[in-house]
């Protein structure tokens, strides 16, 4: 079946270079040092940051003397996908995802400022509808900002797929299932650097440039949305963390 209709629209009515609706909220947990919630279409992710704090007992071997290490735990709620999951964490996909997010933020967080400490990133997927990695990275970025942890720049992530020589950005679950190649990347928009990229599936090498451009533009769109959210909340009241924008 076709991912793009003859009129040039996708299944959910978006144009190929259109993002899904993004909604976000910071400071959703009081217990955590930083937290955020993000919705990209139907993909919903909660992020919580603890730290920087002293390494917990089972992580002592990972302590670095000159920088902090990042511990990332990704879990997916059992009810988050169409098929009920048997276990929420610890499966292969979750481990891969944790490792990828950890790598992404090791590149962005200024880890040398927090020697001998640990930063925990906990991610919980409440509803999974494609582009999970991207939603997780965007949520974790907001949560890190909420926690006041020093970063070189925002990290914004976006995914894209390629069909009939058109690149679709921010792909949803149906488009993921269609079996086209999926390309996800995380960039630091103001420094113009790609810090993570992943390609699942095969494409012709001539098409890679187009896909990278599409993803970069998607990330910059995401950045514009998150940035606007930050500015709105910061202008309202600087002493109060933005807890009520979403409601």
């Amino acid at each position, binding site marked *: 079946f076709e991912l793009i209709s003859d009129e040039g629209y996708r299944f959910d009515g978006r144009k190929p270079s259109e993002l899904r609706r993004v909604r976000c909220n910071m400071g959703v947990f009081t217990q955590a040092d930083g937290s955020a919630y993000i919705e990209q279409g139907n993909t919903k992710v909660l992020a919580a940051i*603890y730290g920087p704090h*002293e390494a917990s007992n089972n992580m002592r071997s990972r302590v670095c*003397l000159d920088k902090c290490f990042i511990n990332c735990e990704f879990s997916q709620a059992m009810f988050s996908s169409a098929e009920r999951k048997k276990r929420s964490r610890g499966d292969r996909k979750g481990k891969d995802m944790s490792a990828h997010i950890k790598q992404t933020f090791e590149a962005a967080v200024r880890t040398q400022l*927090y020697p001998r400490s640990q930063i925990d990133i906990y991610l919980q997927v409440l509803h999974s509808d494609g582009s999970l990695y991207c939603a997780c990275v965007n949520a974790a970025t907001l949560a890190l900002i909420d926690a006041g942890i020093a*970063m*070189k720049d925002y990290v914004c992530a976006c995914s894209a797929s390629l069909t009939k020589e058109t690149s679709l950005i921010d792909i949803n679950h149906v488009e993921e299932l269609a079996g086209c190649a999926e390309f996800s990347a995380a960039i630091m928009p*103001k*420094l113009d650097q790609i810090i993570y990229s992943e390609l699942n599936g095969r494409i012709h090498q001539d098409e890679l440039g187009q896909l990278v451009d599409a993803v970069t533009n998607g990330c910059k769109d995401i950045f514009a949305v998150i940035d606007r959210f930050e500015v709105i909340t910061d202008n309202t009241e600087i002493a109060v963390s933005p807890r009520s924008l979403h409601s």
Partner: protein
Amino acid sequence: MEENSICIPGERLGSSEQYQPGKGTYVRHGFVFASIAGSIKKESDKSGNLPLIHVQSIHTKQHIPQIGGIVICKMTQLTSAFAKCKIISVQGSNHTAAFRGIIRKEDVRATNRDKVEIYKSFRPGDIVVARVLSLGDALCYLLSTAENELGVVVALSENGTAMIPLAHDQMQCPITLLKQFRKVARPQSKHISFPENSKSALTNESTV
């Protein structure tokens, strides 16, 4: 950039020839960038150096102990060679997950170092102000109380009341009048506050 305006991570604040980078900023390719979200503060330097630019976070930040910094800790375990403690506060911020510290026998006080006995200096549960000597090994920070202003600030006697410092090495329980040895931090006048009635009682006494 305007002073007090809001910045977000990655925002360019100015050239490094224009400003000195302070907290919450970093330098890249000759420019100063913000690394946390917050408001921009500038401090001019009188000695002719470049003005300092730093970012003040909107949120209360977790601090980690720095070498030379003052920490507040709670004694947990004593041996004859050292005292172990939990660092409960760094620069006024409360820690949810405590860092661990260790005070060696030699670092308890500045004079008569070889006569120090840990059991006469601290007891488990005491609240101690200490300075960070070094980051120590991978397990705990190395702390020192070898200054007059450092040492035990709060200690409870056996019946649970806070004891009053008598001398640099002694504290007394106001109820049982029991005296115990401690490495007492010298009370600093700027931290002492008298309740209103006790102040008037003091002046009355002096007039009589």
